[in-house]
């Protein structure tokens, strides 16, 4: 793998990874010495000088951020573009989590039949949903609703969620069907 390829691979990873990534992790994934990774990151960092974003090492991990010079546009976008009201997709995802918690993202995807990654991020950002440990067998992150969710829905506790209609198929059976479809 050439230097350029190492740089491109790092860019590709950092562009889609949400959490800051350490040099050590990058070195392991790309199977290159850590010095090479450090050099590549340094080159990349300098290459974005004329861009609207920057590459920064914060708290030991590397991540893309918006360039501070354009924070006004970003803030305006966040306030204008994001609606305070939840979208239908967000509501549906939230309802699955509320009634199936704790639940993994893959399971919610399987139930809704679509990729829910972006919606889950929004729900977490809006403080309605939070992580709740790992699934025993798969190691997948589990999610549950927050107390803020109860507050916004005007409920005292999860037990106050209205019961689902009795004719809804047994949920465990449903899981098996979904598993057979997604396997």
């Amino acid at each position, binding site marked *: 793998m050439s230097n350029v390829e190492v740089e491109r691979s790092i860019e590709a990873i950092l*562009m*889609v990874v*949400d959490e800051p990534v350490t040099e050590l992790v990058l070195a392991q994934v790309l199977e290159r010495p850590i010095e090479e990774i450090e050099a590549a990151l340094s080159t990349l960092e300098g290459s974005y000088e004329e861009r609207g974003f920057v590459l920064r090492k914060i708290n030991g991990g590397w991540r893309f*951020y918006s360039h501070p010079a354009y924070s006004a546009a*970003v*803030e305006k976008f*966040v*306030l204008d573009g*994001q609606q*305070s*009201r*939840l979208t239908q997709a967000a*509501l*549906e995802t*939230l*309802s*699955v989590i*509320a*009634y*199936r918690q704790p639940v993994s993202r893959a399971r919610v995807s399987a*139930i*809704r*039949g679509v990729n829910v*990654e*972006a919606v889950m*991020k929004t729900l*977490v*950002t*809006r*403080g*309605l949903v939070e992580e709740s440990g790992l699934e025993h067998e798969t190691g997948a992150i589990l999610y549950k609703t927050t107390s803020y969710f109860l507050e*916004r*829905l*005007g*409920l005292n506790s999860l037990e*106050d*969620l*209205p*019961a*689902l*209609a009795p*004719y*809804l*198929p047994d*949920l465990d*059976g*449903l899981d098996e*069907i979904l598993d*057979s*479809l997604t*396997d």
Partner: protein
Amino acid sequence: MALAPDTAIEENSDVNPSSGGFSVHLSNFDGPFDLLLQLISRHKMDVTEVALSLVTDEFISFIRELEASGAGWNLDQATEFLVVAATLLDLKAARLLPSGEVEDEEDLALLEARDLLFARLLQYRAFKEIAATFGERILAADKSFPRVVALDPALAALLPEVLIGVGPQRFAAIAERVLTPKVSPVVAVEHLHMPLVSVMEESKRVVEALRHSTSLSFRNLVSDADSTMVVVARFLALLDLYRQGVLRFDQVLALGELHIRWIGSLEGEVEITDEFDIPVVLEMDDSTESGENV
């Protein structure tokens, strides 16, 4: 000629939907069009100029092989293949006959059948090619991952309070809808497999049998009946014929052997009513539980 397969027939319940596995996969083809297309391409022939007899023979032999393989197939699979096979055979037969007048009506019909078959085949081939493109595109799209990041906490703090926008009841209704498995509605057609028995048809048989033998026991008369429905139909036919005065009943003992004697004419039409064959429409009973439709 009905070329389209009967699409209303349901799959067997033991078919696993995730495998998409309704189709015949024994020889790596998927339905009659797929087989036909494979046979044609194997001979490197253009769909529009196919040497029919060769392809027809192979098509038929494929069906035979499938049959002989013991894997068995259900009614609608068989129908789909047989419809195409029948069309091919028809076309082959037409080729073998000396072609005289082109303006023959039957020739024209065959021409239309061939055009239709090939039009459908062309259409199928076009979609098959597109399907390959789809597969490639999905594969390519899967290699590119979107940037999906949570909003920076500093920015998230700027946001106004989130508005769920619905109350708990409405929220539960949404959960119910989302958690209900998406099952497409099905129309049960199992009852269509029971052959309908026509009293008129059975009447004709009864008349024929009685004219032949003059006198018969009811036991004899229904000895070849393959279902209770046929026995009932023949009994109804007898009652109707008795009303017309063309036969006599003789029964020595109650519940004993019933003998029927023909006293009508030995030739000519016997008037047969169709009053038993008029469909009866029953009101559907909606009170039955729909049950869990998983």
